[in-house]
């Protein structure tokens, strides 16, 4: 079953088109990453899914229900995590979550307390008294506590420290293994490939590609070029992706480049998601 179904979604802000004819689906149990440059519309998609923004055109279905009809009951099935969410209220977080949980059909406060203990976070402070990363962790725990079926996470990985990130990624993986679905937006591309199943790349208000991670190496090759004037660099689809320790430059190129330039050196390292991300970003700039 498609947990999320987006059809011909378009959205503009002050006459600037942010999303243009977006189409994608997310199946149950998938861990999907939404990639794109800053301002590409990733957060807007999440805001529309959670009902915080209205779509201009198109349709969005969550668990088969049209979000335009304000199906508030499905919020029991959705968890949303974002830095914008503040549990600011004149009471300690523990007490707040106790009351917050009453709004949902089920809320596991014990889970929150245990996880907070594991992370070394005390729930006896007001929300504003926590650091940025701690706030995000609390929001994430609260989102997981009411046992949603779909988690929408906006740019969390850049806020958390390495150990917390690892902790939560394992929680999320566990969540997907139990049938939950995760849609995460992020800019830290090189980490995504270790825990995501699929990626959607957004560039210039539209989706450039949507692919399973295992399919990436099949489309491109990575090459090393010594000579800055090598004719392959003028070919369509060749994109610089980094510099190596020996001074050579790494590029990714279409798979059939060897047929045209048999003298080029193949980089034995695999094409990563980050390489692909850079490739499509630069293609978008041309």
């Amino acid at each position: 079953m498609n947990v999320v179904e987006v059809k011909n979604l378009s959205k503009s802000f002050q006459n600037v088109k942010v999303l243009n004819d977006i189409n994608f689906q997310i199946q149950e149990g998938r861990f999907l990453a939404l990639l794109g440059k800053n301002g590409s519309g990733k957060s807007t998609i999440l805001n529309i899914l959670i009902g915080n923004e209205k779509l201009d055109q198109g349709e969005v279905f969550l668990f088969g229900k049209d979000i335009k009809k304000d199906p508030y009951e499905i919020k029991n099935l959705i968890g949303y995590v974002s830095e914008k969410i503040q549990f600011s209220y004149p009471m300690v977080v523990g007490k707040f979550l106790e009351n917050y949980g009453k709004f949902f059909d089920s809320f596991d406060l014990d889970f929150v307390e245990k996880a907070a203990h594991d992370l070394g976070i005390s729930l006896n402070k007001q929300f504003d008294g926590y650091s940025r990363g701690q706030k995000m962790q609390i929001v994430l725990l609260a989102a997981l506590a009411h046992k949603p079926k779909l988690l929408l996470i906006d740019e969390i990985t850049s806020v958390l420290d390495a150990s917390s990130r690892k902790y939560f990624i394992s929680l999320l993986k566990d969540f997907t293994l139990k049938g939950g679905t995760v849609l995460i937006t992020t800019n830290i591309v090189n980490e995504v490939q270790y825990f995501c199943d699929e990626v959607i790349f957004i560039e210039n208000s539209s989706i450039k590609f949507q692919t399973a991670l295992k399919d990436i190496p099949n489309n491109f090759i990575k090459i090393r070029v010594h000579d800055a004037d090598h004719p392959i660099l003028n070919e369509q689809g060749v994109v610089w992706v980094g510099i190596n320790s020996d001074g050579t430059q790494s590029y990714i190129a279409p798979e059939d480049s060897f047929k045209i330039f048999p003298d080029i050196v193949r980089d034995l390292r695999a094409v990563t998601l980050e390489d692909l991300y850079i490739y499509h970003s630069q293609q978008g700039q041309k």
Partner: protein
Amino acid sequence: MKRILSFFIPQVILTVLAFFISILLIFLLVIALGVDLAWQAPLGGVLIWILFPFAAYFNRRVYLPTHLEWIELVPVKKSSLILSNVIINILKLICIILASNILWALFFSTESFREYFSFSSTDALRDSDSFLPDALRFFLFTLSMTICLVTCFITGKEWQQAGERREVLARFRERKFILIFLALCTLLGCLIFYYESIVTFLPLSLKMAFFCSLFITAFVRTGFTANKIYYNKMTSLLMFSVTFLMFSGILLFNTHKFLTSDIENTEKKLQEFTKLGFMTRYYQDDIKKNLMSSSIKNTQLTVSELKNIFQSGDYSSLYLEVFANWNKRCDEGDATACRLISNLIFAREGFRPIQKLRMACPQDLRGCYDLITHHSATERDIALGEDSLLKSCGASSNLKKSEINKDTCCSCFHSYWKNKKAR
């Protein structure tokens, strides 16, 4: 909706209780300091205006969250969110207005004031307005009003979104519209205050309506955002105008109904009339009826209050009719009428001392005494030789209050009058 209200109402109640207690503590502090009576009216006024920033602060602390906060993530209908917001804001509004009324009653209730401080009837002859210099009152009033208006607006959505104080102030400075509006409101407040010293420029009802409208606008701005129904500048202004017209209409209508009714509540009506200022011309018949009513028992109408009532002309028919009525009642032994005549004589400007003396004598001996002992001659009095008459009356006897009798006062007048006729 029940879940939302059960979550927020206890917090609202706790916060409002804290608000009430802090106001009462301020009041008790004022009493404990033994503040001079003359300071209490303006100090009370300043404290009431300071209620506004307190109210706005507490409103900010107890609000239904706005703009993608956790409340939008819970499975609750948006209509329930909005309705809950309305209920919570109305509850807060009622509590704040109640606090304002209690404080107003504590500071301005004549019975409680005078009972506590043994307010003597002699003092009623003096102008009971502020002891503080006008400039200082002016400054205090505009300062407190500016604080309250600034706080009301700052505690809107901008504060909640900004988070950091620096950012809030930076955003506030950028809002030219708010600054202009603040300046206009402050100017209006200054005009209200300034003219109040001389004539009552606006009835109390309109002033109440103005600030209630500010309340509502400030409160509503921090709510009603669950469904992104934001109030931008124009809608804020519209909201303010609508509530102002609504409140002022209701208050003025009720005031009018009360003043023109046949309900026998003369004392209260007279107090309301004194606040009407220039609008008394529309209530001449009612004012006359109440002033001449025999049900006036222990009214403490002060000189300034009588001035407010008798604004139009020195020899208006209202004044003469009322004065004649009181004269007659005083002759018949009505002590209240006699005292009112004294107040009235002092309230009326333009009468020469001898005219005042003639009117005072033989009706009210105490008034005569005060006139003799406290008279300050004008140039005209001196030119007519009346100042020496009055001085001689006072100097000739070194009169004490208890020694004044009808003959003493009248003999002074009669001897003058006799001499004048002889010339």
